[in-house]
């Protein structure tokens, strides 16, 4: 029966090519606009590490003394001070934790034709790769003792290995980071999360770093932060040591919990530390405070999905509503014109339900055709966005989920538009139409 309806629908569409075209274009434009904004929203809000995003937690300590405020909604700074990060790293009751920051260096190798170029560095403790599931292609992360000695080792991505050496198996080779020669101990597979969730300081949509060095290098080689460094009170800082020990916040810290009880236990650990520090005159406040936020909470807290994007999604659905109203009008006109046919079919024994569903099938077919136009338009729109915004190459794209959802939205919109006209057609009694002929 459905096939027969599809056949009828196709014939009807062909019979009125102009009106059908108009409707397909109308729904196509509506879907095109909606899918463009929705795809960007989908990619921006997609969980970048879905399988463990509720285990990973960003750690924040309320380091501000009473009377000071911060830019976040709860006044807690986004990053940690160096002494705090170091303590949490070295005394952590849990294995899986990472302290880190973004730095940068001129990268080159010991060949006369090697032209130095700037790369972002992730200066991080050993568990970065385990926490965030960064796979290794060759070698592994530096050892605990290498870390303690601040050994000149480095982990690079396969992309960078290829760029520098023209191959990926480069264990034992050395690269210059600035003026220091580092030995490559590991090569990671390409790892590009859609959102740089682990450090949203600069641009949350910038690509992740390709070079990783031990956390201990900060102290040993006085590495500067290339992310944000925020002081919240006036301090006399005259040397790098002063800076390290200051109340300036500039480091990111993440932990992974396997259970709720671990989370509670960790919370107590953090509180105990802060209470201890209060005796030294730090954390000068009535109520101690800290945050442990999961990846989705963290992204929301940092407003990673811009309000512009949400507004656009809302407006494009309103736009789709106008398209639906439009198609409703056109369908009404089209169906009314063909009401005599329906009358004949009714007189020949078709039930109301059959007439009704036959018309809905026709409408759904229009929706399907419209979604093809829409998806094509959305590709044009997304390409335009990628052209306007640098760094949106992974964001302004349509993944298979959106590709599947496009016809669903389109058919649904058309069905909504078609309900009333189909009902009007099927309820008219056959006699009225037969009489005039």
């Amino acid at each position, binding site marked *: 029966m459905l096939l027969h309806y599809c056949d009828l629908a196709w014939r009807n569409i062909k019979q009125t090519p102009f009106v059908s075209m108009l409707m397909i274009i109308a729904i196509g434009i509506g879907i095109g606009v909606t899918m463009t904004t929705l795809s960007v929203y989908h990619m921006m809000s997609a969980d970048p590490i879905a399988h463990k995003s509720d285990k990973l937690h960003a750690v924040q300590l309320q380091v501000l003394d009473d009377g000071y405020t911060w830019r976040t909604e709860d006044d807690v700074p986004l990053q940690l001070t160096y002494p705090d990060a170091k303590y949490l790293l070295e005394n952590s009751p849990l294995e899986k934790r990472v302290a880190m920051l973004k730095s940068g260096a001129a990268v080159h190798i010991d060949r006369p034709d090697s032209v130095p170029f700037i790369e972002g560095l992730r200066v991080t403790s050993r568990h970065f790769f385990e926490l965030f599931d960064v796979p290794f292609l060759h070698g592994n992360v530096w050892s605990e003792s290498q870390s303690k000695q601040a050994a000149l080792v480095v982990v690079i991505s396969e992309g960078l290995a290829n760029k520098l050496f023209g191959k990926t198996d480069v264990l034992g080779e050395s690269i210059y980071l600035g003026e220091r020669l580092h030995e490559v101990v590991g090569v990671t597979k390409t790892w590009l999360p859609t959102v740089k969730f682990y450090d949203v300081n600069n641009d949350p949509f910038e690509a992740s770093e390709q070079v990783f060095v031990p956390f201990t290098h900060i102290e040993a080689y006085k590495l500067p932060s290339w992310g944000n460094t925020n002081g919240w009170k006036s301090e006399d800082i005259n040397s790098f040591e002063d800076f390290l020990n200051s109340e300036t916040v500039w480091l990111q810290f993440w932990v992974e919990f396997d259970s709720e009880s671990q989370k509670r236990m960790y919370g107590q650990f953090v509180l105990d530390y802060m209470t201890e520090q209060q005796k030294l005159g730090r954390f000068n406040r009535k109520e101690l405070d800290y945050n442990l936020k999961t990846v989705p909470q963290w992204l929301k807290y940092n407003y990673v999905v811009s309000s*512009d994007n949400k507004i656009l999604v809302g407006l494009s659905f309103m736009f789709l509503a106008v398209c639906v109203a439009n198609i409703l009008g056109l369908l009404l006109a089209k169906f009314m014109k063909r009401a005599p046919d329906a009358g004949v079919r009714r007189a020949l024994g078709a039930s109301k339900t059959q007439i009704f569903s036959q018309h809905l099938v026709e409408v759904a077919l229009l929706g399907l055709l419209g979604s093809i136009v829409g998806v094509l338009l959305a590709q044009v729109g997304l390409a335009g966005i990628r052209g306007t915004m640098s760094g949106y190459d992974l964001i302004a794209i349509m993944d298979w989920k959106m590709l599947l959802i496009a016809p669903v939205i389109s058919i649904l919109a058309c069905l909504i538009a078609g309900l009333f006209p189909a009902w009007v057609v099927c309820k008219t009694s056959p006699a009225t139409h037969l009489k005039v002929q």
Partner: protein
Amino acid sequence: MSEIKPILSALKRSKTGAILLVLQIAITLALVSNAMSIVFDRLDKMTQQTGYDEQSIISYLVVTYDKRIDKAKQFDEDIQKLKELPGVIEALAVSSVPLTRSGGSWMLSTDPDDLKGKSVDSGYLYGNHTLVGALGLKVTEGRDFTENDVVYDRKKEYPTVAIVSRAVANALFGEGKGLNETIYSGNNAAKVIGIIDTIKSQWPKSNIADNLVLLPLQDSTAYQKFVVKTTEHQRAEVMNKIEPLLLELSRGRVVMDVKALDKSKADTYASDRLMIKMLISIVVFLGIITALGIFGLTHFNISKRTKQIGTRRALGARKSTIFKHFLLENMVVTSLGMLIGVIGALLLGRKLMGVYDVPPLENMSILLTAISMIVMSLIAVLVPAQRAANISPSVATRSI
């Protein structure tokens, strides 16, 4: 006004078409007026005066990794050689580049203890005494830096004078005041020797867009930014020469981000440009769809009433009466749609304002949208109305 009655009764008979039209017009009005309001706001922000000579400034970054290079000396040589290039007017090391969303900010206060006295969050920017001139800024009140004010390499002491933006002066010392007052950042004190009216900070889209403090301090760091002022028409030429020239003078460093200031500004506003483009495309498409809808529905309404029109004509109605009837009918429907649309627009505007950082909806935007929609619906109805007027009275007598 005797025509109103038949219009109302005609509308009553074909409610569906009218309701659909009203709905479309209402949603379109609400959507377009809010979208245009956002567009105007963004355009306004993008075209605000920054005070900088955007068309003739280049910025670049030098990352020196070879520790053997004496940076202060090297940078002096760089700048001297740069100034020999045709078209270069001024060049200097700066702490950050305006309008680029990157740089330093601090808490400024009227008292060494930031919890006492008034304080304000502000960006800071430092360079030698040529800073103000090189950026094309104009000191409105007070004086510019002189060579004697400049502190070289931060190790010794902090500068004792500063030039602040009007917004900073106003926030700390009250409207129109601030010259010769002292500002504090912790124990560092500086006297305000000049105030600049038109100036933007490194973050022109933030809440500290107008807050900036200029300090006479020349630094030579391993990650040093520079600003070059050129003549407007020779800028592109100079831009291409910077990297090769500097690398020829000394290796062991990377020269990057050689960028025109207006390009930097455009990058800062890229997301706003995208928003404007998206909103305008929505508005344009919506305009087309709604015009088509009005055209189609009027057409449909008329074709359904061919016989009635014929009858009216047969009973003595003139062509112009029929024409006027449809024009007026369209007006009634459009006005109703507008009325609902204006209410919808205001509600939507308030909702957007409450949830997101959106400026209040401007009445001007609603009015402009409403006028263009009336014009549009008039144009859309002209052809179908003309056709209706041309229906011959004879159709009324046929086929009954």
